[in-house]
């Protein structure tokens, strides 16, 4: 979780009051949802592709020790240096140390959620190394000083009007920016020289291919290749779960990843990076470093969250989540928002600080329905609710209310009596069929009318009818 955050309800409340935010979220998630629906409708084999995606990812997770060693062996054979980091801090230290050794003044970065997770932007700043975010969305939020609010569209919370203001205030040559096309051109002009001047380029990885030792990145802008090719040093930071057995397995997953994320068949640029510059190459990095980051992943594996390690970070669960679509990414407080984030954040940042995330979900199941690797997200969220209950993290008010309810619900005669009494009591607050406010029902009646119940329960009426029939 980001430091010094107000409680979840306050964060969510502030997001709900921000009408510009709602507009921004609707524009991007709405487009993504429609485009995905079209792509899926044109793919009769989508469900069997999901089964395959789940099977490939589950196979990797179940054999992650084997694939890590195989990947390392092949990457090293290609000339890469492979580093292992158990924690976020260790990963940042490794990256900063490589940058220092390379005498780096300026570093370009191609969007990587793992980099955000381990706090790499802050680590580079602390080391006084200039950090240039090259993904358009990351560029926008770097200018705004915001954290990402979506795993595929980090600047999803910004409207085009807000982006225009940011560029106008900070670009050397922003131009008139009469439309989105012109804003994109402004960023292209702004970043071009920085790509070529960087000492180190840092990227993430969409897949780590075990049998070739290759790192696969996907982008639509081409910024990954412009980040990783000109500088002398290329550093990859990757979560250890990103492995796939072979390039062919990566291809099967790419089909699912891209359609689920944007509705396209494939990203414009899908690149497999294998080792540093070869003899005779006119471009490419002299050094190629891969930092394999655990940061809690092996703990998730042993903690009943193995299914979550299948995640390929497409963002479809965010786009289809009613809660995300109303509160946006920042209210979640962690690196990863939405349903996948609500499963990951308690593991990454601790349950006490994030217990609300598992509860702030209607369990409607849309996220699981769209997940390309069939992660049972609602079940995993229920798992966190169970754990929060067992660990005594639930508020006393909730525990008391549930205790009283259970006391009644496990005593059928009492349950019938209490129900009959409750419906009578509720009558006292009803006016023309509706209860507009009532003690203990403020959560409901603050925003909607409560239909007054009938004056007797179904059970009372049913038994009366049975008696009358005899």
């Amino acid at each position, binding site marked *: 979780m980001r430091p010094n955050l107000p409680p979840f309800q306050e964060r969510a409340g502030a997001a709900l009051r921000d009408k510009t935010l709602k507009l921004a979220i609707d524009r991007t998630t709405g487009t993504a949802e429609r485009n995905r629906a079209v792509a899926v409708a044109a793919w009769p084999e989508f469900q069997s592709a999901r089964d395959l995606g789940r099977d490939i990812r589950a196979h990797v997770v179940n054999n992650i020790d084997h694939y890590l060693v195989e990947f390392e062996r092949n990457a090293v054979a290609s000339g890469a240096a492979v580093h292992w980091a158990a924690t976020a801090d260790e990963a940042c230290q490794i990256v900063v140390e490589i940058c220092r050794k390379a005498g780096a003044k300026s570093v370009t970065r191609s969007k990587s959620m793992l980099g955000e997770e381990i706090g790499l932007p802050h680590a580079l700043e602390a080391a006084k190394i200039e950090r240039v975010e090259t993904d358009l969305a990351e560029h926008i939020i770097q200018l705004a000083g915001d954290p990402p609010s979506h795993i595929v569209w980090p600047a999803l919370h910004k409207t085009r009007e807000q982006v225009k203001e940011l560029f106008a205030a900070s670009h050397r040559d922003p131009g008139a920016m009469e439309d989105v096309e012109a804003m994109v051109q402004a960023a292209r002009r702004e970043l071009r020289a920085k790509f070529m001047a960087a000492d180190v380029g840092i990227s993430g990885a969409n897949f780590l291919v075990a049998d070739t030792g290759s790192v696969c990145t996907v982008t639509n802008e081409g910024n990954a290749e412009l980040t990783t090719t000109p500088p002398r040093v290329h550093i990859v930071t990757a979560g250890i779960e990103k492995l796939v057995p072979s390039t062919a397995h990566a291809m099967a997953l790419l089909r699912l990843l891209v359609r689920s994320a944007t509705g396209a068949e494939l990203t414009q640029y899908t690149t497999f990076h294998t080792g540093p510059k070869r003899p005779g190459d006119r471009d490419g990095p002299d050094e190629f470093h891969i930092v394999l980051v655990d940061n809690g992943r092996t703990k998730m594996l042993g903690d009943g969250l193995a299914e979550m390690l299948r995640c390929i970070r497409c963002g479809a669960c965010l786009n289809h989540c009613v809660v995300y679509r109303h509160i946006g990414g920042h209210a979640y407080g962690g690196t990863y928002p939405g349903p996948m984030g609500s499963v990951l954040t308690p593991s990454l940042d601790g349950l006490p600080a994030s217990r609300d995330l598992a509860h702030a979900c*209607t369990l409607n199941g849309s996220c699981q329905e769209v997940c390309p690797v069939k992660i049972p997200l609602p079940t995993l969220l229920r798992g966190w609710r169970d754990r929060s209950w067992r660990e005594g993290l*639930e508020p006393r008010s909730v525990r008391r209310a549930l205790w009283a309810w259970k006391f009644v*619900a496990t005593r059928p005669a009492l*349950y019938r009596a209490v129900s009959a009494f409750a419906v009578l009591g509720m009558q006292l607050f009803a006016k023309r069929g509706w209860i507009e406010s009532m003690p203990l029902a403020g*959560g409901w009646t603050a925003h*909607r009318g*409560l239909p007054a119940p009938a004056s007797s329960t179904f059970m009372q009426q049913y038994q009366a009818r049975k008696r009358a029939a005899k």
Partner: protein
Amino acid sequence: MRPQIGFAALALLEQAGCTVEVPAVQTCCGQPAANAGDAGGARRIARQVITAFEGFDYVVAPSGSCAATIKVQYPELFAREPAMHASAMALAGKTHELLSFLWDIRHWQPQGVALAASAAYHDSCSGLRELGIQAQPRRMLGKVDGLELRPLEGSTVCCGFGGTFCVKYPAISNAIADDKARAIEATGAEILLGGDLGCLMNMAGKLHRRGAATRSFHAAEVLAGMADGPAIGETA
């Protein structure tokens, strides 16, 4: 809350050739405990439910979320207790949500039922995604004379109820319900139909607060010819 839904279910099941009993020992399926993370509490109630319904051929609930709790959650709750798991699986196998039971198992169709109205149908999430209920209610409602079903934009999007979610996170729930109410109003339909009272109360309550004239009924009330009286939240 609305006994008429229970009586509509009784009438429909009898029309579909069933002998219906309502065991007095039943209380609740235990969903509030299961969703709160209180697995122990949920198991206590589940045991009670499993016992209460042991002697019956079918268990039918006029709610997708109650039926899904029994069909999907119970077996998971007893995953580590083989004997109870077998009992939970047996109950899960014979438990059905009312509308899908009528159509899929009893092959029942409304005959001579009429309601002159335009309606929007909301697919409640548990029924839709855990039990596959989508076509059945529409097929049956399509055979009600005079009833015009209008397409509801985002009919499969959650209404923001989510059980205790709606009172634990009222502001988020309200924002979601507000979108749903707007979509319902945009259809211009006179009535809103659905298969889960919780969702219906949420949507009806939001529509009422917004001043909309839309009236809300459980689909079973329409199918049983009982939608001629007060709608949810209306007085006689």
